[in-house]
């Protein structure tokens, strides 16, 4: 194992840097810029059972250090992903990929996960529970420990690959949600998803986004993300994948010290398509600067001790 490598739910990553879901498409746009095999891996665009067209535009709004998005989970549906996107990806990416799954009912999640579970290219299932629970009256799965654990338990029964549950930060008590997921059998926790936010256009005097609210991401959320990763990693005994505003090698190390086994980079990719590659290239020098020999050694280093 190299200086940078980490083990995530039994699979070794050459480095802890994972491009985050929704900011890396199905990979090949970035393969036009560089060889994406340098990544630890990436999490592909949130996939649902049925195709989704998403929300009306404008879907993005700028913030001082970050952005809002209200894409609305646009994706071609899991069957097309398996039939078209994965074969296309295979030509430019030879590592196990993280399959990001969304749903609006437990059945939805189970269906999509079990389809993707069968795909050889898929290494992990990343189950995004920040979607409204249609059966549960629109409440978001990820804001209620009981609803969250039901999704996890159902998915775990249907699949063989490691299940990483992706949490919404928009909760009073992130630890109770994470613990419920762990108890329900989750193999890992990833966080944070975007934080609900809004921008208003002073010219039109209306919200910038057609959807009015959107998810806030980018450097502005970093201190919140570090805190939540720390809280969750201090409590659960499964690996935590940290993300939220990570933009440089120092941020990766800070997330790992907070308890992240691997670190996702999202919005940074949109502004600089080379963001992940640059971060990976910078890691060894930054590790030297802070006297870090192997990244695996620092996971959770800031907790207690």
């Amino acid at each position, binding site marked *: 194992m190299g200086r940078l490598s980490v083990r995530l739910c039994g699979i070794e990553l050459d480095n802890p840097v994972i491009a985050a879901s929704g900011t890396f498409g199905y990979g090949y746009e970035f393969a036009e810029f560089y060889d994406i095999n340098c990544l630890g891996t990436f999490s592909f665009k949130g996939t649902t059972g049925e195709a989704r067209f998403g929300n009306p535009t404008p879907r*993005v709004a700028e913030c001082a250090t970050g952005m809002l998005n209200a894409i609305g989970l646009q994706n071609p549906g899991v069957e097309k992903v398996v039939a078209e996107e994965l074969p296309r990806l295979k030509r430019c990416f030879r590592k196990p990929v993280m399959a990001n799954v969304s749903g609006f009912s437990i059945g939805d999640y189970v269906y999509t996960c079990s389809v993707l579970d069968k795909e050889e290219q898929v290494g992990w299932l990343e189950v995004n529970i920040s979607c409204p629970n249609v059966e549960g009256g629109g409440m978001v799965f990820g804001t209620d420990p009981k609803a969250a654990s039901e999704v996890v338990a159902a998915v775990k029964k249907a699949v063989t690959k490691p299940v990483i549950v992706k949490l919404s930060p928009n909760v009073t008590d992130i630890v109770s949600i994470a613990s419920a997921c762990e108890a329900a059998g989750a193999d890992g926790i990833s966080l944070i998803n975007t934080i609900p936010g809004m921008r208003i256009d002073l010219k039109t005097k209306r919200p*910038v986004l057609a959807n009015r609210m959107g998810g806030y991401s980018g450097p502005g959320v970093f201190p919140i993300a570090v805190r939540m990763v720390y809280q969750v990693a201090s409590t659960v005994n499964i690996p935590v994948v940290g993300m939220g505003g990570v933009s440089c090698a120092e941020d990766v190390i800070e997330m790992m010290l907070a308890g992240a086994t691997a670190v996702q980079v999202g919005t940074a990719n949109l*502004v600089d*398509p080379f963001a992940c590659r640059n971060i990976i290239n910078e890691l060894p020098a930054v590790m030297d600067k802070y006297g870090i020999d192997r990244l695996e050694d620092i996971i959770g280093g800031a907790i207690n001790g």
Partner: protein
Amino acid sequence: MKDSIFQVIENRALTPNIFKMRLCGDVSEVGQPGQFINIKLDGCYLRRPLSVYDADPISVTVIYKVVGRGTEIMSRLKNGTMLSVMTGLGNGFDIMAAGERPLLIGGGAGVPPLYLLAKKLVERCSKVSVVLGFNTITDVFCEEEFKRLGCEVTVTTADGSYGVKGFVTDALPEGYTYFYTCGPEAMLKAVFDSTGTSGQFSFEERMGCGFGACMGCSCKTVSGYKRICKEGPVLKKEEITWEG
């Protein structure tokens, strides 16, 4: 698509709020007219997309209207400033469809991408007509540039202070074989309804990435959703639905 460093070598006002900026750098990916570049500015988190106005072997030129923080910052950039610029974005206009007598219809900040297009079309067509619409006389820019290419140019102003009084659709010439248009969405709709031939429309949409990664700019077409930054910004008349 390429992300590289460009240097500002010219940046000056054409009208009180329209600026022309020439950027020197690796233009190997600056290809089709109608494509755009995406500029990273100090002090703005997202990049700013601007159509290619003109290009030569060492530089690319854009013309932009100051409408908000980013373009305001841009207007104050000095010669020599280095900028990270992504080039070769979007599909661009398809010039093969032009026929003998294409018509170019531009409104306000939508005029710039038509210039490089006109440059290409005058080489292959017998006549290129251009209609440029502005609000008022002090907003008019680029009329001379199109004339110098040999285009037949009509200018309209909404208040009649210069050229034909009215909108571009009040001054469309007869006998064009095809059209290309770029401008505010209300103008595009009017052009859609007023034109007799097929044609191509260049759209604007708020963008997250500008290179197809985020789905921020998706737009409904008759053949499904398209990303304005990737399968656009140019859509064919036949593809367009106006439901958003």
